[in-house]
């Protein structure tokens, strides 16, 4: 029982991060029908930029929490700018080309960002300096620390905020209209280019925060951390039903929990034949299983194209 609760907590934490990254994929996919392969790299850049700033300020004598916040505050606008530039340079000129062409540029952007990061920050793992006094709380026999609580709270807040933004505001209306039909939205006076740019900017801001949370959770950052994380988050978005915000959140948290449960129980269940090194397989099998029975994802709209 104690493992269960502990794995549930771990899964909830990593799932919250997946959910935030998955939101970025889903936002872009909803509007452009494009798998933004470079999104995971923006998460990585967010972590790297924040860590650089934090590294510069470590010896400044400022309070730890303030330094961390400053790092985050620098990372967010940087990532927003990067997201904006990626869309302008690599995707916008190909808006009317068939979907595989922008997919290849997305892969290209991902390679470029990853290698740039490698040149700037090196190939070594960069660790998160011990600035924050981490508190541990125990719930029955499981423990949760203050960073984990912080991650869950912040991501919940961000999800609620985004949900409000998309569903309740004028900007959100314009976003949804563009996602439905960009041309008609244009006739109604919505500037599709602005909306798409904004979508990238918002998604990138989320990614920056997610990057920060990943490094805080695992205490390290690495130039290729974005790739697998992005992959998992995209899997989560598809699991929930891509293009659907609540689906991304749900899928993210579900994936996190499934993964950590898999890691915790796979060994016991299979009598040691398959250990926690099969954790990733578990995630992908879940995805395949869900899609076979519900081809549009858990919360996706049923029914395909009308003939």
């Amino acid at each position, binding site marked *: 029982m104690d493992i269960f609760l502990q794995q549930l907590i771990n899964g909830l934490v990593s799932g919250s991060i997946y959910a935030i990254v998955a939101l970025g994929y889903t936002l872009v996919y909803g509007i452009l029908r494009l798998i933004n392969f470079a999104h995971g790299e923006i998460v990585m850049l967010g972590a790297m930029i924040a860590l650089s700033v934090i590294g510069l300020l470590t010896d400044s004598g400022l309070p730890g929490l303030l330094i961390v916040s400053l790092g985050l505050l620098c990372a967010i606008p940087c990532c927003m700018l990067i997201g904006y530039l990626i869309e302008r340079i690599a995707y916008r000129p190909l808006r009317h080309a068939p979907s595989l062409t922008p997919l290849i540029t997305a892969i290209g952007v991902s390679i470029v960002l990853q290698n*740039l990061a490698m040149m700037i920050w090196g190939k070594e793992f960069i660790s998160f300096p011990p600035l924050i006094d981490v508190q541990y709380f125990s719930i029955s026999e499981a423990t949760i620390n203050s960073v984990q609580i912080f991650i869950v709270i912040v991501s919940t807040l961000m999800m609620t905020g985004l949900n409000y933004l998309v569903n309740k505001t004028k900007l959100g209306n314009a976003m949804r209209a563009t996602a439905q039909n960009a041309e008609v939205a244009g006739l109604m006076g919505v500037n599709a280019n602005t909306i798409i740019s904004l979508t990238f900017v918002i998604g990138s801001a989320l990614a920056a925060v997610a990057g920060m949370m990943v490094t805080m959770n695992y205490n390290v950052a690495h130039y290729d951390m974005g790739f697998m994380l992005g992959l998992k988050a995209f899997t989560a978005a598809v699991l929930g039903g891509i293009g659907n915000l609540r689906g991304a959140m749900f899928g993210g948290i579900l994936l996190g929990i499934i993964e950590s449960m898999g890691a915790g129980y796979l060994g016991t269940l299979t009598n040691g034949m398959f250990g926690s090194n099969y954790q990733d397989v578990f995630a992908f099998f879940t995805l395949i299983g869900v899609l076979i029975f519900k081809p*549009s994802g858990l919360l996706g709209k049923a029914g395909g194209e009308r003939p």
Partner: protein
Amino acid sequence: MVKKILSAYCKLPYCKVISSLLLGLVLLTLPFITDYALGRIWVRILDFSLLYIMLALGLNIVVGFAGLLDLGFVAFFAVGAYSYAILGSPHLGIHLPTWLLLPIGTVLAGFFGILLGTPTLKLRGDYLAIVTLGFGEIIRIFLNNLNAPYNLTGGPQGINLIDPLNFGGISLSQAGWFPAVYNYYYCFLVFVLLIIFTTHRLQYSRIGRAWVAIREDEIAAQAMGINTRNIKLLAFSMGASFGGLGGGLFAGFQGFVSPESFNLMESVMILCMIVLGGMGHIPGVIFGAIVLTVLPEALRYLGPLQNNVFGKILVDPADLRMLVFGMALILVMLLRPAGLWPSPIRKQEFDEAIEDSND
């Protein structure tokens, strides 16, 4: 000027015969020329180009012809390579002959193609992409971990000392008349020509038309009496079997396999070859495969180049290489969205699409 000479040449009688003879001559002497001009290492790169042409043509059936986005193609490559390695190495002490190993890998990969295809073909384009990607990762993770409880794949270390390709008692890895890399070049060339021949014939057949029909409009294709499920499965298994064959050849050539060679980036790379070259267009795909195999290798010369220009190495060429590669990928797609060498019809479509968007 070049155009004038070309068109004058095309008017010559027998121009096709002459071109074919010239091409044949170049293909036959290519390893010698390459070796002389660039060095032995480039003959090896040439061999890899041929392998990638096979893989790209295999994936082209799935993505280019049938329009099914497959991001886990490398899984089939892995199946071919590992089945060759397991059944033809001291790892389990089994040493089947090459003429059995290659067909086994080919058929097994084709079977895996059907295995992956059956449950997933109902899925829409991008969903299919992520599921195939997941499948590729699943295969890789299994390869990485199936060293316990029974050591089947050798785990992260992989399998070593794999039997070289051997035809009629002649091992290609032993220099006979030619150095080993030459032997492999000619061997791979034969397979590549066979695969080109096969895909070309398939493209202009009842089956090839059905694939393209599904790509263009699945519902209309069904209404024409095409059993889309079977025809898609056929595409999956054909493409996969080419990948499996390539994998077998790779294992015999390389002498060792490890999960490292079969990661997602490899799948992505093969997809890039197709899109960059010109989807669905066989010459374009071949060209794309060559460019993307040669380019990263050529970029290794960025080191010496810096030395010559700046007198010292400013940036580690190994680091710079992938950066430039990524930029090239973006640039080519921006400048030539239909690929470097698209089929005439597809190019026309793209031009119209671009014109439309400029309105």
